[in-house]
């Protein structure tokens, strides 16, 4: 090679190298010529709306940045949830930004799905409706429960298209409960239970912290009654065949035989009738009631239910001595053959204990009470199967998944002559069998009003303009169904309705309502007197006929399967939200999978170990699922949560977990309550084994000072551990894990005898957090909010098995080794230690102690030695093992104030430093200090029970500093003398 050739080659090479490595610039950058008024770059705008992830209808505030909603938070003005959300509410955004969301109508053709325009779809719908003609019931409508204005519209539609009554289908309905109220009180409704006013709460399976009626509201009400306050704490007893999250929060959980609730309740009624004669029970009720429960007996009931007679007797006495007792009936997961009787008996027991029913409030009943009974749903399905339906409209329901007759429905949809339109944003199990899938706007994108409690209107508005071309459901109806629609579009219809029905006639009222998130007015008073109904006699008859379950069920080889509603997926609609899949189940700590929970006795009988795949065989279907071992379940029972196992519903749901609903018989009680207990014909090992994707390393805490509990008065008597290891006189005992004092991350927390390093002087603030374990119910809302706020990567099932989950905040659940039914939930995030072990070992100062006490992780500096994580005693640091993916458009949800981390970098909880910085900005603008409570990290903000408090530990008046004085205050693993800034308050246990 000569010199010239060499220079040429070298020159070309280096140019090619330089050109090849340059980042590809964005070709076009547009700025908004005319930005909307409330869109300021870098500043968020908040829009009130309504969460429609379950029928409770909590109020949300949508945080919008640069035209995209990036976070949902509870609306503090909303009477249902008062500013907090559950994990499903937090994850509602992932429906809007779901990568598998349909953006155009899909028409089923012989060559598969064909995308058509919205106009074509509307015309097609109009033609099909016309073709279905005028015959009654040839067009039918099945919808999720909707708000009052939409109900009005659907009623009109029903008249126009002769659909008969719209079938409002909610898989988790409460027919037995409604029937009890109907028959006894003449109120066909689901009331509000004032748990907060009770001093003794007894639940026979109602999972009010998870899915029952209005879980966020009841979590709050429950902790108002059950959190320690001035040395007092209400008592909560739970009796159910398996331990739900709600049961895990009880002072005492009694494991009872499946379907034995009514027997127990009858015995309790009899006991209270006999012993508590001073109660003002109407005579016309007392006598027939006494007759109805005449054959009941406490000891016998205890034997049937399999609980200790003394425990039941004690509970009965408690009922008599309690001043404000409240009984809750069964939940959706434990509805057996005597479900009607259970609810009836629970109501009657309430009535016997408190004839005024002062803690049951019918003034604002749940909208869920308008759901069709399962009998009506089944009738619709029968018509469908019989081929009598020419046009079926399905709006936001997934009967193929949520009904045990799902396979039958799918077949009927596939093979029947009729035309089915699924108003769904996803190709879900039902949509996959429909003829036309018609995506419509979601709650965050549309104008609507929803009254989770009837009459309490909560508004929805498009929080980010019109992001997609899809119309609102109401628009489609108005356009296609009426020749001369009452309003041009649904928004106009809504305004018209609000004007007529809710008195919103002026612009001012309207704007106020939109800003507040709804029309929250005091409920009209309801007469307190309880009128007993004609139905009572039939009710009592049913009660007296309620038979105890076959007493030998436990000894037989067959198990009863319970299908529990899931706190994560509700009835299954949450299954395509990756956050909900990733955040583990609160009790099993298993993510992504849906194992079947078995008692060790049952496992021995079948001959399986945890992780073995078993085949559940019922009369209707077979299902394979891995086994999860738990002692917190009746030995005659197998438990699976519903919600997963979709045949279609996008990448996060399809084929993930199993769907136990298919195993149910589909039977209903007399009132139309779907039964969720099913006898299994057989359960057998398959010989296969899988690894459970569980995030816990141990179920107990090995006697360590981590999740600590106490009893009432114990700590007040002893105060903080006084010993500082240098007690005067004689023998100097060393400090142990137990006796090590509380060492605040402040100068006063340092002791020259113990600390060789100098005190950290903090400038202005020293941020810290209080976690009240007595208030934590373990629901996981905080963990989900953290995912949403901090752009945390989703790793998936396989990586969780490998131990690579990225949660910055996890809820550790520790079982008491002496009584595994006692559980302490322990939320754990970075403790922002003053003597942080992570800081000293990093060679490049990536973990850095800020002047406000925060332990900052500087991603740009991190080179990934992972020493910090090794040295962190709490193991809260998370490493980016890979580059995590946000399939489009999920990346639009990312918080622009938080860095998206790349592979090879360590990350962890930052106390939501982005929120702290915003507060600093505001304070500086106004030339003031940051107010106490002004900063709320995402976890604190969403906690339904107020278990988390954030603030400045340096400020002696701040709430956190005041709470540090609580004798229950301690630091987890505080004896390491690392001075964590998260102070825990012990859980208060009560023996009952």
């Amino acid at each position: 090679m000569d010199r010239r050739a060499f220079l040429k080659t070298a020159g070309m090479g280096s140019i090619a190298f330089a050109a090849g490595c340059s980042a590809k610039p964005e070709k076009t950058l547009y700025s908004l010529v005319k930005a909307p008024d409330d869109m300021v770059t870098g500043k968020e705008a908040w829009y009130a709306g309504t969460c429609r992830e379950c029928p409770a209808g909590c109020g949300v505030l949508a945080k919008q940045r640069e035209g995209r909603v990036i976070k949902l938070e509870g609306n503090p003005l909303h009477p249902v949830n008062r500013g907090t959300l559950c994990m499903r509410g937090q994850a509602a955004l992932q429906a809007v930004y779901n990568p598998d969301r349909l953006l155009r109508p899909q028409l089923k053709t012989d060559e598969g799905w064909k995308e058509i325009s919205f106009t074509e779809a509307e015309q097609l719908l109009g033609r099909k409706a016309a073709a279905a003609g005028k015959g009654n019931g040839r067009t039918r409508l099945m919808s999720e429960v909707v708000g009052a204005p939409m109900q009005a519209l659907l009623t009109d539609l029903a008249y126009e298209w002769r659909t008969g009554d719209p079938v409002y289908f909610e898989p988790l309905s409460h027919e037995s409960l409604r029937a009890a109220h109907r028959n006894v009180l003449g109120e066909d409704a689901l009331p509000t239970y004032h748990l907060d006013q009770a001093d003794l709460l007894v639940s026979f399976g109602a999972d009010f912290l998870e899915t029952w009626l209005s879980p966020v509201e009841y979590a709050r009400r429950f902790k108002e009654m059950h959190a320690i306050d001035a040395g007092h704490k209400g008592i909560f007893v739970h009796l159910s065949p398996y331990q739900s999250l709600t049961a895990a929060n009880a002072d005492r959980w009694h494991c009872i035989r499946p379907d034995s609730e009514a027997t127990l309740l009858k015995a309790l009624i009899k006991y209270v009738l006999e012993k508590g004669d001073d109660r003002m029970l109407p005579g016309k009720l007392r006598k027939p009631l006494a007759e109805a429960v005449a054959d009941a007996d406490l000891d016998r009931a205890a034997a049937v239910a399999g609980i200790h007679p003394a425990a039941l007797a004690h509970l009965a006495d408690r009922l008599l001595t309690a001043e404000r007792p409240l009984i809750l009936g069964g939940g959706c997961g434990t509805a057996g053959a005597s479900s009607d009787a259970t609810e009836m008996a629970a109501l009657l027991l309430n009535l016997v204990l408190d004839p005024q029913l002062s803690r049951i409030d019918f003034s604002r009943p749940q909208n869920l009470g308008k759901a069709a009974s399962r009998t009506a749903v089944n009738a619709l399905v029968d018509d469908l199967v019989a081929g009598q339906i020419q046009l079926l409209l399905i709006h936001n329901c997934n009967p193929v998944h949520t009904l045990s007759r799902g396979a039958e429905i799918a077949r009927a949809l596939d093979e029947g002559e009729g035309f089915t339109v699924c108003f769904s944003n996803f190709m879900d199990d039902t949509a996959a069998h429909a003829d036309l899938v018609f995506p419509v706007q979601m709650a965050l994108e549309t104008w609507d009003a929803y009254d989770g409690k009837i009459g309490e209107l909560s508004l929805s508005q498009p929080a980010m303009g019109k992001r997609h071309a899809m119309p609102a459901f109401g628009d489609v109806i108005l356009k296609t169904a009426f020749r001369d629609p009452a309003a041009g579009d649904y928004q106009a219809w809504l305004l018209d309705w609000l004007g007529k029905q809710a008195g919103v006639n002026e612009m001012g009222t309207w704007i106020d309502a939109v800003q507040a998130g709804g029309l929250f007015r005091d409920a009209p008073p309801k007469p307190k007197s309880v009128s007993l109904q004609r139905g009572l006699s039939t009710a009592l008859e049913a009660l007296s006929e309620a038979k105890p379950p076959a007493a030998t069920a436990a000894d037989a080889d067959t198990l009863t399967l319970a299908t529990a509603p899931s706190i994560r997926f509700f009835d299954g609609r949450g299954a395509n939200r990756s956050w909900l899949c990733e955040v583990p189940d609160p009790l099993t700590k298993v993510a992504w999978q849906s194992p079947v929970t078995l008692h060790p006795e049952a496992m021995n009988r079948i001959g399986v170990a945890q992780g073995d795949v078993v085949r559940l065989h019922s009369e209707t279907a077979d299902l394979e699922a891995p086994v999860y071992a738990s002692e917190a379940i009746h030995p005659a029972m197998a438990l699976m949560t519903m919600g997963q196992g979709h045949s279609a519903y996008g990448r996060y749901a399809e084929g993930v977990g199993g769907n136990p609903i298919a195993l149910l018989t589909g039977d209903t009680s007399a009132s139309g309550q779907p039964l969720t207990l099913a006898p299994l014909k057989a359960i057998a090992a398959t010989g296969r084994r899988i690894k459970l994707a569980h995030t816990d390393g141990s179920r107990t805490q090995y006697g360590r000072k981590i999740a600590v509990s106490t009893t009432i008065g114990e700590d007040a008597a002893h105060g903080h551990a006084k010993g500082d290891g240098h007690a005067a006189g004689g023998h100097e005992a060393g400090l142990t894990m137990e006796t090590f004092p509380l060492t605040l991350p402040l100068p006063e927390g340092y002791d020259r005898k113990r600390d060789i390093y100098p005190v950290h002087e903090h400038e202005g603030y020293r941020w810290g957090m209080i976690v009240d374990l007595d208030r934590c119910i373990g629901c996981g809302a905080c963990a989900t909010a953290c995912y949403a706020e901090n752009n945390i990567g989703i790793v998936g099932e396989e990586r969780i098995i490998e131990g690579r989950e990225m949660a910055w905040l996890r809820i550790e659940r520790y079982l008491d080794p002496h009584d595994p039914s006692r559980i302490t939930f322990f939320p754990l995030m970075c403790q922002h230690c003053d003597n942080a072990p992570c800081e000293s070992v990093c060679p490049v100062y990536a973990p850095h102690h800020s002047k406000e006490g925060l332990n900052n992780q500087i991603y740009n500096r991190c080179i990934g030695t992972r020493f910090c994580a090794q040295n962190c005693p709490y193991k809260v640091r998370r490493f980016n093992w890979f580059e995590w993916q946000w399939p489009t458009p999920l990346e639009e949800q990312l918080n622009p104030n938080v860095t998206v981390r790349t592979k090879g970098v360590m990350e962890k909880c930052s106390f939501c430093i982005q929120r702290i910085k915003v507060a600093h900005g505001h304070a500086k603008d106004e030339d003031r200090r940051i107010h106490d409570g002004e900063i709320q990290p995402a976890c604190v903000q969403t906690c339904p029970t107020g278990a988390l408090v954030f603030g400045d530990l340096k400020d002696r008046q701040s709430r956190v500093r005041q709470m540090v004085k609580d004798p229950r205050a301690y630091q987890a693993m505080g004896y390491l003398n690392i001075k964590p800034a998260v102070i825990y308050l012990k859980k208060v246990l009560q023996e009952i």
Partner: protein
Amino acid sequence: MAELTYASIDNTVIDTLAPPRRTYWATVALLFAGILLGATCWGYQIFRGIGVAGQNNPVHWGTYLINFVFWVGIAHSGTLISAILHLFRAGWRNPIARAAETMTVFAVCTAGLYPFIHLGRVWLVYYMLPIPNQRTLWPNFTSPLMFDVVAISTYLTVSSLFWYTGMLPDLATIRDRSEGLRKKIFSILSLGWTGEYELWRHYTRGYLFFAALATPLVISVHSVVSWDFALGIVPGWHTTIFAPYFVAGAIHSGLAMVLTLMIPLRKMFHYEAIITDRVLESVAKTIIFTGLIVGFAYGTEVFIAWYSRNPVEMESFYWRAFGDYSLEYWIMVSCNTIVPLLLLFKRVRTHIPTLFVISLFVNVGMWYERFVIIIGSVAHDFLPHAWGLYSPTLIEYGIMIGSFCLFFFLFVLFCKHLPSVSMTEMKETLHEGESHAG
């Protein structure tokens, strides 16, 4: 050693440098392929992320750190043998000193790669260098990892220089006996060594001082490596015994590796007259001693954990012995302390194949010792909810194979191209008489 003469020593050693056979080059090629395999695995890991290896939360350190400590440990006996035993005038070290020193240099090189392989963002490794820069970054000298950077690089520098210095007269001998290109190369390498009296006087003094200088490093390097763990607060790491414990363990493994390497070398290069059975026996006796120290350390750890009454410590050590990694623990205990006790029997330690097998056992045992410490401690530390297990992935095995191949590749190249026994020191032994030959 009766037949040994100056000439026979020279002849035996220089005979090993004769042009190698095909099988030799086949071996070299095979080892090189192994290195490529490791490099490919590493490249894939850089591309995809550390997740392709088996580390997780809580076990953030896996085989990369195990192998790092393992190779640093191997690197120990070289300097021990050449420096400390030189100062003690233990003549039996002379025949094996060169190979041991070479082993040291290559083992440090191999070990030095692992921190790079281990890093999440290896392309930013220069952040650890204390160079003034515009990023206002400065390394954190309180981090044991910074100690490591200093200690390992010092050790590599000193041991390479020591190795080279010791080789100078031998290089000159080879120069004198060769022709052509080889003569040219060795002329440069031998730095003009003439063998004059003055040169020898300065050289022996200088070598002695070098030995004295290198001696503290034997202690310091592995002490510093042990502080990677001891300065952490993890139960099972946070003990004061760690520095001597690691040093003893390092020497233990280093001596075993010397045997593993020397026994085949002796056979192949017909070194029986130079590396006598008594030399190997002396190494074996030292292994008994280091094995006992290591065993004592195991016992002390367990005792202190019990004596502390700290539930975390107690549980940690109970779990080590009887938990998920109990098999690894008992491999460690038996291979490192029980198996070497067999060497107490003269028939065992003089039976060369048995000695070879035992040396392999100790190597395996010492690898597992690092496994038990590095994996076992964090897998089961403070918060039971965070406990988790670890197992290596194929990528890690690939890199591990690559690193072993790299070591043996370098060693095999060395054997045929440089004098694998110190002719100079052998002649000294001959001169000073049998008494120093062990």
